């Protein structure tokens, strides 16, 4: 999977990627004040003197935000450590104090890693707390502050708690980067740290991108901002990596700079060079004291963590392996099936059905193919019972699919659902009548089928399924075709 995109770069080149992910924490109130942390709302309604930075106000750290940050750190295998807050100074009208309270020298979490579904570990340099800014809309002048006729500012988001998760430059392709973000998002959502909605901006990604000839030292990197979906993250990385390779191959040099991804054009544009970067003049936030979470509290938080996706994948893979009678090896397709099931939160169902004796292949097949829209009212034991009936040949695959849909919609046990559908099953006489009608309508195809064009079997089975709205048993139909042909 990871190799596909390297192929997009000329032979001998590789991309080196590190991501900075900002996630809004799911707290009731803001990081340093009591105003609500809520998406949307009329502009400037989720504010108070502190989040507006009114003169004389002071920040007080939100305990729940700290707890969520610790959960993030523990989930990413970080050291959770005593930390300090710092001020990042720069002027922008949507920042109420014209400085952002962030963590700089001593982040709350450091030195962790995230394990991708492929098993590769991506280093986590740090995951620190900081406050979000407001939102500005510059009206006129192409939306740029310097040319705008006027600017509108909404401070509802100002002070919302963020966790900024900085990866090591361990990612090597856009696919791997997307996989990383998807996995990170799954972890953050699982532990209740964020809702992970990229479209609402509650999860935001900046990409540090450089390229090098395989085996060389790290190249000069560019930071690409404004990627608002996984898809645009992939496109932005591919574009930017190719731009840098082209530049280097033509004898040029990459300039360290911040670049803006333009989704419509599919290109990145230079925003500002390193020389033009703001000097943030970081210094310790004197309005806050160091954050030293109690060891016992950290252990309590660790104890209450839900099982994380990587562990859930391991459990499912191990259950699959143990239950498998055929002893087959599982390749990438299987890894991705397991990842999908866990991502859909259907691993409990799979594990339950397998341990209740259902056939592993059938469990995977039905979950992957028939439960993409969710499990509804489906009960684990009913699912296992249904699959056992299918494995025993008591019902056909298509019947199982139909009954599964019933169980999802209505719940109940499998026996009752199978009973209810039994009367629907077409009898042999009905099938024969249908087949005669089909042969009359499609005499050409029937002739070719009889002469050995085997693929037409699918055509006739399909037509019968269509006519019976899926009630016909596929195997019985195939048998009937063979008999009629003779």
């Amino acid at each position, binding site marked *: 999977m990871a190799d596909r995109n390297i192929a997009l770069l000329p032979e001998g080149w590789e991309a080196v990627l590190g991501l900075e992910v900002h996630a809004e924490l799911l707290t009731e109130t803001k990081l340093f004040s009591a105003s609500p942390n809520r998406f949307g709302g009329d502009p400037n309604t989720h504010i108070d003197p502190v989040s507006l930075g009114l003169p*004389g106000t*002071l920040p*007080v*750290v939100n305990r729940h935000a700290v707890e969520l940050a610790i959960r993030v750190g523990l989930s990413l295998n970080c050291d959770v450590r005593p930390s300090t807050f710092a*001020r990042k100074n720069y002027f922008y*009208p949507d920042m*109420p104090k014209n400085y952002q309270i962030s963590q700089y020298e001593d982040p709350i979490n450091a030195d962790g890693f995230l394990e991708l579904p492929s098993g590769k570990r991506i280093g986590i340099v740090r995951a620190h707390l900081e406050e979000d800014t407001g939102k500005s809309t510059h009206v006129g002048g192409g939306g740029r502050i310097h040319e705008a006729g006027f600017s509108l500012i909404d401070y509802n988001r100002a002070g919302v708690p963020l966790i900024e998760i900085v990866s090591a430059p361990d990612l090597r392709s856009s696919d791997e980067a997307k996989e990383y973000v998807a996995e990170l998002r799954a972890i953050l959502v699982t532990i209740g740290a964020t809702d992970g909605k990229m479209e609402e901006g509650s999860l935001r990604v900046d990409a540090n991108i450089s390229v090098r000839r395989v085996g060389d030292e790290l190249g000069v990197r560019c930071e690409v901002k404004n990627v608002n979906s996984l898809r645009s993250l992939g496109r932005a990385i591919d574009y930017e990596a190719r731009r840098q390779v082209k530049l280097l191959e033509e004898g040029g040099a990459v300039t360290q700079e911040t670049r803006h991804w333009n989704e419509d054009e599919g290109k990145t544009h230079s925003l500002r060079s390193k020389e033009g970067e703001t000097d943030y003049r970081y*210094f310790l936030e004197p309005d806050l004291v160091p954050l030293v979470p109690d060891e016992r509290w950290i252990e309590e938080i660790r104890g209450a963590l839900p099982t994380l996706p990587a562990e859930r994948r391991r459990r499912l893979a191990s259950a699959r392996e143990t239950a498998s009678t055929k002893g087959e090896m599982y390749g990438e397709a299987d890894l991705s099936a397991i990842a999908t099931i866990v991502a859909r939160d259907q691993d409990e169902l799979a594990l339950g059905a397998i341990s209740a004796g259902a056939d592993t292949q059938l469990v995977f097949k039905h979950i992957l193919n028939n439960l993409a829209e969710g499990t509804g009212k489906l009960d684990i034991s009913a699912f296992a019972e249904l699959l056992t009936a299918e494995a025993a040949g008591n019902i056909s695959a298509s019947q199982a699919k139909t009954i599964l849909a019933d169980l999802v919609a209505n719940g109940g046990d499998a026996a009752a659902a199978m009973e209810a559908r039994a009367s629907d099953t077409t009898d042999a006489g009905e099938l024969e009548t249908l087949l005669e009608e089909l042969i009359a309508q499609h005499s050409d195809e029937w002739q070719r089928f009889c002469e050995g064009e085997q693929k037409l079997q699918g055509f006739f089975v399909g037509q019968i399924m269509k006519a019976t709205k899926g009630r016909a048993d596929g195997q019985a139909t195939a048998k009937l075709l063979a008999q009629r042909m003779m």
Partner: protein
Amino acid sequence: MNALNKPAIELAAAIRSGEISAVSAVEARLSEIATRDAEIAAFVQVLNEEALAAATSVDDRVATGEDPGPLAGVPIALKDNLCTRGIPTTCCSRILEGWKPPYEATVVSRLRNAGAVVVGKTNLDEFAMGSSTENSAFGTTRNPHDLSCVPGGSSGGSAAAVAAGFTPLALGSDTGGSIRQPAALCGVVGVKPTYGRVSRYGLIAFASSLDQIGPFATSVADAATLLEVIGGHDPADSTSIPEAMPSLSECLGRGVEGMRIGLVAELCDGVSSDVARRVSEASEALAGGGATVEEVSVPASRFGLSAYYLIAPAEASSNLARYDGVRYGMRTESSNAVEMNIATRTAGFGEEVKRRIMLGTFALSAGYYDAYYGKALKVRTLIIEDFNRAYEHFDALIAPTSPTTAFEIGSRTDDPLEMYLSDVCTVPSSLAGHPAMSVPFGSGDVNENNICLPVGVQVLAPAMGEETMFRVGAFLESVAVNVAESVAREALTSEALTSRDG
């Protein structure tokens, strides 16, 4: 002394017992202010109606048998960098002119809960940056003892209000000496508590790691009562010490018998001879009271001023970034938000504020941070260590509060460095976060206007050492009366000599 012009504790007692009405006490003060503040200019805003309404409510509570609190009906003046709900709070800067906070500073709420009556907001150097109150955008306050002299600063308005008898109490804020230095220059008691003793919530920040609110009063006992009311933990200020305020009033009469008191050598360097004389008289008095008094060295305090003038401006450059014309205060319209921001700050801030923003921005800049801000932080640590070493041997320290008595208005405005030197004796304990207070202790040599201006002696104590500090302060106050009498005799003698010569 007029019955209505009592010290705060006595006045509150009289009002609580119904002997005097709060309204009459407040009316008397308001009328004094109306008559005499035109020449002193301690106040930038007098709250006649609000004060009378508050006094009426105190009287109502007394009438119904309720206790309005330990400061019942006591008129108090607030430095205009303390937020008062719905009442303009300006920091004496154009950039905040007319701004009305939608909330009350914690100290103001505590004052109201204790029955105190806020009669007005007092003048200060813009954003508390200065040592003379000459940097106010709304005019200069004059020293009540000599109208040609400054009251000190930056809490000059509050110091002058108490010295002039306008209010028995006032609040100021002290970042590098802004309570103690004007207290000394105006001849009143001024206290900077331990950093974190008093909530900063609602104090408009100058330098957050140094700012501390504290009392002005005519007596040590009144200052103690006021600090008891405003001090103690506040969850709205993360740097607030999570402890209740100890009772200070109880330790006032205990004397200094058996105490070990150090005279800080470095802080006596370069002070004028009249100030030095009073400080040595204070040492002798303490020894006479049974204390062991010795000279002590706090070596790093020599670098206090240099470190302070990097750390305080650095924090100020960040704290004052929010005044950008976007959300509140002054706005100078311009072509776009960025230009508006520049135009507003250019027009809204005074010279000294701009100078410190520049200094602080520079000190924090990439490439200069280590050499300036970083080094200043190291000096700060050394100062704390040196003080702590001294406190291993001493219960409290004494020093001059200000190197000189009050100086002429305009005499230091052209030389910022000379102005900064006014803080040399007060800055070290600010950097350490330790408590310190200034107690009036006689007066200096007769000046050009034939006036002997007040001298303040500074009492320093280790962190959380307010009880010790107030004990020493109360003792010095009790012996300073004698000093004042001897001063009066000296003055008479010299006058007699002059007339004989003439």
